[in-house]
């Protein structure tokens, strides 16, 4: 009776929504590092110091545990793992609002490079450097760009022996502190050294203190061509899709911390002679939030598994994960602030770091509304004829 829409219903093997033992081991390693080195007070102090990210923590993660190269095959200098493992790392980083470039360098920049010809030394060399954590990269697109979205081609490349790039890109996450920019321009994707002449990176005072944005200005900056226009578009699309799908796991981690911390606090804080968490008005809100977080986990795992296995349902899984997890993380952070009362409103308490991350991440790589619009096309639920 119901017409079968394309991707969502294809009868492939059901996704593995659990965590493998190896994935749990990776989680344990990352969590223990973060509890030792990434306490919220450290995170806040780092953010206030104006450092774009915590370089020392990133070294331990990237090179020590190997999180920078998870998505990169062994023979290209990486760990040969998949989006599933990366998702677990991002969950933990979300739980700690850790200021490290996992998403911007190890997911967005790395996936964009993997979409280019990795047999070419111009591609393989920077890829290995990012995978080994020797350098940090950033994909130079506004963080709000959704998968499939065409960032206005603001950068032009003047042909020559060495192409020279000119233009400006706003709201780039991870640009400050990066060594290498991957710049989509009119004639392809280019690698640009941030130390080169003609490159200016201006930090923007950002809503999210733990993932600051910057404006990238290029004035005849030397670049090297990574891929021509067609392939570049596919590479950037793949990066945005992977980034959006894995961001859901980071959002899950943010939501999880907010829920746990709020349950802990309301169970201890006493008013009217009893813990405030014994009042049903709060219990029901937290139980409802728990259900959303449990569902966010299933949805985020589904997206990570689809990306890892190259499932034909990947686009649907990512659109679902982004429309769902972005809102859950924001709700969790908002409840966290509200149910902490006055202390939740302070600079001192870490709740605001999570709220700022959650709200910014909701806009990142496509808002939930944009992802629902994408879904309308993907599962054949068109809007009213105009």
């Amino acid at each position: 009776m119901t017409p079968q829409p394309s991707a969502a219903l294809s009868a492939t093997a059901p996704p593995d929504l659990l965590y493998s033992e190896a994935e749990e081991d990776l989680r344990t390693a990352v969590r223990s590092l973060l509890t030792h080195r990434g306490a919220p007070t450290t995170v806040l102090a780092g953010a206030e110091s104006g450092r774009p990210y915590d370089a020392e923590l990133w070294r331990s993660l990237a090179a020590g545990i190997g999180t920078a190269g998870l998505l990169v095959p062994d023979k290209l200098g990486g760990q040969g793992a998949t989006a599933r493992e990366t998702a677990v790392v991002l969950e933990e980083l979300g739980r700690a609002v850790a200021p490290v470039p996992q998403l911007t360098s190890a997911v967005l920049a790395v996936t964009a490079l993997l979409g280019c010809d990795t047999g070419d030394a111009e591609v393989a060399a920077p890829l290995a450097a990012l995978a080994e954590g020797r350098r940090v990269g950033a994909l130079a697109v506004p963080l709000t760009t959704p998968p499939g979205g065409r960032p206005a081609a603001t950068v032009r490349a003047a042909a020559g022996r060495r192409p020279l790039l000119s233009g400006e890109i706003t709201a780039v996450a991870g640009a400050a502190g990066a060594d290498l920019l991957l710049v989509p321009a009119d004639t392809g994707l280019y690698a640009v050294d941030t130390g080169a002449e003609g490159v200016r990176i201006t930090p923007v005072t950002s809503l999210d203190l733990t993932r600051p944005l910057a404006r990238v200005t290029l004035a005849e900056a030397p670049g090297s061509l990574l891929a021509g226009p067609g392939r570049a578009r596919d590479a950037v699309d793949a990066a945005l899709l992977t980034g959006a799908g894995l961001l859901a796991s980071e959002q899950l981690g943010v939501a999880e911390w907010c829920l746990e911390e709020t349950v802990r606090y309301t169970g201890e804080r006493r008013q009217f002679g009893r813990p405030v968490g014994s009042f049903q008005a709060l219990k029901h809100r937290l139980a409802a939030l728990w259900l959303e977080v449990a569902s966010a986990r299933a949805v985020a795992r589904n997206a990570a598994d689809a990306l890892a296995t190259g499932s034909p349902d990947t686009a649907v899984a990512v659109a679902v994960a982004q429309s769902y997890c972005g809102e859950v993380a924001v709700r969790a952070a908002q409840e966290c602030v509200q149910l902490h009362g006055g202390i939740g409103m302070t600079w001192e308490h870490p709740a605001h770091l999570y709220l700022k991350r959650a709200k910014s991440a909701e806009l990142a790589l496509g808002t939930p509304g944009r992802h629902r619009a994408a879904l309308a096309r993907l599962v054949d639920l068109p809007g009213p004829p105009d």
Partner: protein
Amino acid sequence: MSPTDPGPAASADREAVDAAGLRARTAALLAAHDPATTPRPDFLRARFDAGLAWVHFPEGLGGLGAPRALQAVVDAGLAAAGAPGNDPRRIGIGLGMAAPTLLQYGTEEQKRRFLRPLWTGEEVWCQLFSEPGAGSDLAALATRAVRDGDGWRVDGQKVWTSGAHLARWAILLARTDPTVPKHAGLTYFVCDMTDPGVEVRPLRQITGEAEFNEVFLTGVRIPDAHRLGAVGEGWKVARTTLMNERVAIGGSGAPGEAGEGGMLGLVTGTWRGRPELRTHDLHQRLLRLWVEAEAARLTGERLRQQLRRGRPGPEGSGLKLSFARLNQELSGLEVELLAEDGLAYGDWTMTRPEVVDFTGRDAGYRYLRAKGNSIEGGTSEVLLNIVAERVLGLPPEPRTDKDLPWKDLPR
């Protein structure tokens, strides 16, 4: 293991209940009892005796002690051969609630007597739990069971009893000791619905029909052999029933089952088939619900995977909450989408339905019937309490009713 894989020699026994073994047993059943010529009850009994009714049940009780997930192998083989089924919509309470409770707490004799006709549908079951004075606070119930020779005599009133008019047997919770706190004084019985002391009266519902009833119990005789679990342990036994009830309701075709099954499939079908009905507002809401239904489907799938690994997660208590909310919102959206057609209602005639089908009949019926999804089997408010206290470990509300003898509770 693939069917051609010889496997280790030592596992010959276990192989009998893997997928290949089940396929062979299914084929043997079909060969011995041609579904085209075998009467339905005979076929179902033979299927039960072959251990293919519910493969995860023990041998001799309709199963083979096989992993639950392998039921799908049997079902697919039987469906392909056009074999008759036991119509779970008719016997949902027996299958979903009575059976798991009998399996866990029944004596050998009780299991042998009750499970076979329960599964084949020859004997329908109902649930005599709720009372006018005891709904969410089920443990406060007042129906009394007193010793009477070698059995019990039961007096009281039950209410909202689905399918009591069709039932041969009931699972019954009654008070055997009013002098102890309410949870401690309960005992669980199997009640014969044909006893002359049982009177069933229809209760008409908001849908127009009467799916549930009030049941008056006057001097009903129950032999002690029909007691399930120890005297005074009724609450413990009932919790098994209630947990299974939530899983049965929450899992009964989650709104997004198999992509777009259930309520979601009905709405998307209309959406695609009748473009003239679409509006921007409905579009936004539909997409939101599509995502939420998909999230609920994946949450259920994740729970099943955890169960298969033997690590049940607490998500189960949440599934019924999502199921109820989504069914209500989707069916409400469907009425709006249908515009003029949404204003019509199929039939208000007072009938006595034989089956319960949340996704059956017309949109108006579905909208109204879905209202029960957040009440039956534990209200959504009560389920949120359970999640908050048992899953999140939040402190309980101060209570005055737990330690007093039941007879001294304010009423």
